[in-house]
C-alpha cells in the first residue's frame, strides 16, 4: 500500500484558483529553515507522484505538490490551457500561500511549467529543479504530437486494448525497483483526467526547451533519469545558462517513490548550496 497511502507528515487540502479548486499535498515543518518548494507533476498524473518526496524534503521546508488544473483532484479549465496559463495559476497558488520567495521542481510537463513560472516571477522564483528537459528534433516532435498530444489518443476501445497500451507504455519506462503496484497507481492516476488527459501534453509540445532554457537566469539543476526522455534530455546540456546537469542512469519513472532518500539528498544539496556556487 506504500504507493497509495498518504505518507506521515503530508496533508491534503483544497484552495481556490483561477479555474476552480486546486488540490494539493503539503508537508510543512513547524519551523521551516529553508525556502518553500513547489513541485509540478508530469502529465497525465497528479501531485501524488511527489507524496513520498515531499514527506522527506518537507522536514526542513514547506514542500507542496499541487495537482495541475484538470489533473488529479483540481478543477479543469473550460478550454485547453497553455503552459503559460498553468504557470500563472501556479504563481497565484504561491501567492495564496504567502510565499514571497520559493523554489520549484518540475517533472516532464512540470519542467515546462517551472520554466514559464521562472520567467513570470523572476524576483520570487529562486532555483529550479527539472526532471527531464527534452530537446526534440522536428521528426520527434511530430511523433510526440501524434502519440500523446491530440484527443485521438484518449478514445476508449470497446475491447480494452487502450488499457493494454497504456499499461505497457508505463511498464517500459519504469524504474527497475518499482513494482507492478506502482504502475497500477500511475495508470489509475492518469485516467482520472478523463478525456482532457491530453491537455497537458498538447500544451507542453507547443513550448520548446531549446528556446526557454536559455531565457532563465535562475540556477537550474537538470536531472536526467533513464526514462522515455533520457536521450532527448541529453541534448539540453548546452542550453543551460546557469545550471548543473546530473545524469541518473539507474533511475526511471517511480524513482521518487523507490529512491526517495537519494533524490531528496541530491535536490536538497542543490537548493541549499550557497549563492557563490552559481
Amino acid at each position, binding site marked *: 500500500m506504500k*504507493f497509495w497511502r498518504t505518507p506521515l507528515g503530508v496533508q491534503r487540502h483544497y484552495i481556490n484558483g483561477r479555474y476552480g479548486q486546486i488540490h494539493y499535498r503539503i508537508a510543512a515543518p513547524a519551523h521551516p529553515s529553508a525556502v518553500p518548494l513547489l513541485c509540478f507533476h508530469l502529465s497525465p498524473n497528479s501531485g501524488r507522484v511527489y507524496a513520498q518526496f515531499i514527506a522527506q524534503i518537507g522536514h526542513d521546508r514547506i514542500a507542496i505538490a499541487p495537482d495541475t488544473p484538470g489533473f488529479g483532484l483540481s478543477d479543469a479549465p473550460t478550454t485547453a490551457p497553455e503552459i503559460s496559463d498553468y504557470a500563472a495559476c501556479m504563481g497565484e497558488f504561491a501567492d495564496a500561500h504567502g510565499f514571497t520567495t520559493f523554489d520549484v521542481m518540475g517533472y516532464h510537463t512540470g519542467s515546462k511549467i517551472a520554466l514559464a513560472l521562472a520567467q513570470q516571477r523572476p524576483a520570487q522564483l529562486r532555483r529550479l529543479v527539472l526532471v527531464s528537459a527534452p530537446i526534440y528534433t522536428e521528426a520527434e516532435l511530430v511523433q510526440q504530437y501524434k502519440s500523446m498530444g491530440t484527443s485521438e489518443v484518449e478514445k476508449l476501445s470497446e475491447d*480494452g486494448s487502450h*488499457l493494454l497500451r497504456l*499499461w505497457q507504455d508505463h511498464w517500459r519506462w519504469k524504474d527497475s525497483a518499482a513494482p*507492478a503496484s506502482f504502475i497500477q497507481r500511475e495508470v*489509475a492516476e492518469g485516467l482520472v483526467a478523463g478525456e482532457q488527459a491530453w491537455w497537458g501534453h498538447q500544451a507542453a509540445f507547443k513550448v520548446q526547451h531549446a528556446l526557454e532554457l536559455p531565457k532563465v537566469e535562475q540556477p537550474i539543476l537538470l536531472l536526467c533519469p533513464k526514462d522515455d526522455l533520457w536521450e532527448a534530455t541529453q541534448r539540453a546540456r548546452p542550453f543551460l545558462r546557469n545550471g548543473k546537469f546530473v545524469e541518473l542512469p539507474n533511475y526511471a519513472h517511480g524513482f521518487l517513490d523507490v529512491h526517495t532518500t537519494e533524490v531528496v539528498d541530491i535536490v536538497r544539496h542543490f537548493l541549499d548550496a550557497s549563492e557563490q556556487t552559481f
Partner: protein
Amino acid sequence: MIRRAFHEGAYGPLHYRIVVPTATELRPPLFMFHMSPNSGCIFEAALREMGKDRIVVAPDTPGFGESEAPLFPIEIEDFANTMSHLIDFLAEKLNFSQVDIMGYHTGAMTCIALALQRPILVRRIVQISSPVFTDEELVSFRSEYQPKEICENGAHLRDAWLNLLRFYNDDVPRSVLARNFASSLRGGPIAHWGHRAAFNYDLKIYLPKVTQPLLIVNPNDDLAEQSPRALALVRHAKIVNIENHAHGFIDVMPVKFGEILRNFLDSVP
C-alpha cells in the same frame, strides 16, 4: 456547484463532494454512499440535481476515491460510523439536525447500519439495490469478487474494463464509463475490502430492525433479482424498478431520478 473537501476521519483524511445551495428554504440534507469499488464521483449528476433544494454530500468511503484507507479491513458498521462522524461535523457547521441517506450497492448496506446506529438522526433511507442473498448466492458473489492479481502485461486492466462494461447499457455516455472505470481503480490493492464488508453484512438480520421509511430503487443490474426480497423484511418500504437501465442510470436520467427521490423524500409522512 460541486465543491470538494477533506474531513479528518478515524482512518485519516476522508474526502467528500458537497453542494450547498444558496436558497434559504431547504429540504433535509441528503448523504449519498457509493458502491464498491468506486467513489462519490458516481453521484455527480445526483449532486447537481438534488443540490437545487437541499445540501447534498457524497463522501468517498475509507480506502476508496480519495479517502485514506484503514490499516486493516473494516466492516459495514465501521463505514457507517465514519459517515456518522462526518455528518455530525457538517451538521454543526451547516446547522442541521436530521438527514436523509441514500446508498448504492455497498453504500446501501452502509445506509442500514447508519440508520440503526443513529435512529434519530436518519429520517428517510433510499437504497439503490437492497440485496438479500441466499447462501448459495453469497458463495458465488464472494468468489467473483476476490482480489485480482496484477498481470505484467496489463491484462488485468483490460479484464476489469470488460467486466465493467457488462453492467452498463449502450446509452451511458463514454465519459461516464471512463470516469467510473478510473474511479474503480482507486481502491488500489485493497479495492476488494468494500465487497468483503458488504458480503459480511446480512440484510436479513438488519432490515427488520429498520423503523425509518425506506425506498428501494431497483435498476436492472446484477442485484435486480435479490433486491425485491427486501420488501418482505421491512415494515415501511416500497420499491421502484428502473427497468431499462443498469449502472450509470443516474447520469442517463438525472431529472427523472430526482423526481423519484423527491416523491419519496419530500412526501408527507
